[in-house]
């Protein structure tokens, strides 16, 4: 137990805890909402989006960190963009080749991983200042923290909207599908409840200017 506690206080341990819990991209920093709502009406889409974002996050953080001494500060935004877009093209091509159904149902949202603020945020806040190993660790923790949220949201929404989990029917026969959960309003409401629960658990203090 003491050894386990010690792990928490190493640098790597802290980075992982922060990514998963204290700085969780969704409920603390409220970043990357667009993709987390638009595609989480089915579990497989949530999983694919989580994996895609984690992949792009890890590789763009790695390369930003490796190139951090070469990238001129004034042109760093463009440099991030090009790196991120390159890895998103990889994800898009992989999805198109191996999972054409998922690729079709996600439509333009695969391309929109480029403008997911989490990736840019981690590059700017962490990878540009730190070495490659810690950057990859940070990206991985953030990516998993993000995927966790996507999976929770899509589980709830798929269950309520279609009565299924990953395509398998689980609700009893009298179950009436709650179709609005699959579209935008349901997404907003489920996320509102999720934010409420998680922010109360994590005891995040709202800023003074917040309504």
């Amino acid at each position, binding site marked *: 137990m003491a050894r386990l506690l010690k792990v928490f206080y190493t640098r790597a341990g802290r980075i992982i805890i922060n990514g998963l819990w204290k700085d969780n991209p969704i409920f603390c920093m409220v970043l990357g909402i*667009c993709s987390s709502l638009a595609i989480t009406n089915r579990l497989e889409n949530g999983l694919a989006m989580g994996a895609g974002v984690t992949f792009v996050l890890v590789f763009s953080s790695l390369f930003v960190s490796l190139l951090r001494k070469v990238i001129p500060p004034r042109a760093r935004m463009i440099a991030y963009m090009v790196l991120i877009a390159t890895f998103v093209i990889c994800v898009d*091509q992989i999805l198109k080749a191996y999972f054409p159904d998922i690729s079709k149902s996600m439509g333009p949202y695969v391309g929109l991983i480029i403008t997911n603020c989490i990736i840019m945020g981690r590059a700017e806040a962490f990878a540009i200042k730190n070495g490659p190993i810690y950057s990859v660790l940070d990206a991985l923790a953030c990516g998993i923290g993000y995927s966790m949220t996507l999976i929770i949201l899509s589980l709830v929404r798929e269950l309520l909207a279609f009565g299924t989990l990953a395509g398998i029917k689980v609700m009893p026969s009298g179950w009436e599908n709650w179709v609005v959960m699959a579209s935008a309003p349901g997404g907003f409401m489920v996320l*509102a409840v999720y934010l409420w629960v998680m922010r*109360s658990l994590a005891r995040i203090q709202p800023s003074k200017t917040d309504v």
Partner: protein
Amino acid sequence: METNPILIFIAAVFPHNIALTYILGMCPLIAISKSLKTAFGMGVSVVFVVTSTAIINWLVYNLLLVPFKAEILSYVVFIIMIAASVQLLEMILERFFPALQAVFGIFLPLITVNCIVLAVSLFMVLRKYDFVTTIFFALGSSVGWMLAIVTVAAIRGRLALVSDVPKGLMGAGITMVILGILSLAFMGFAGMVRIQ
């Protein structure tokens, strides 16, 4: 499927509102909707940037990428064109319209990572719009987004005066509830005009 540009415009503002049905551009919608004035400023800047980048990206895609069969590069090219034109716009404003720059200057760097700018370009490719339709679609989408952010800001301003929001729900949470109710209301427009 509808092809009349005017109807595409109406469709993009109401039944296919880019913020409330496609859930795009959420980060600024949450972060900048605290006061009506800044929300309006952000909205106007977005209308301008989205429309001009959609025109540029349509030209680049159809005149450069398609003839050379380089569609795979479209993500990189689009995002670079967006970043470059935002930078250019900032410089033009700084040089010729310093008064406008003082008002809208702070929003411009944020717009580069606003998903709706890229989303409009991606939708335009996906739905194979022609040049005129693209302009009306881009205009409609951005006006629709502006409508959403201004409405949310107005509601939040009123809420700040009278409501007693639970602590965990403050900020992003209550904004999500507002957006949920608004998008339920906008579902009422569904079926008005059909686009793909």
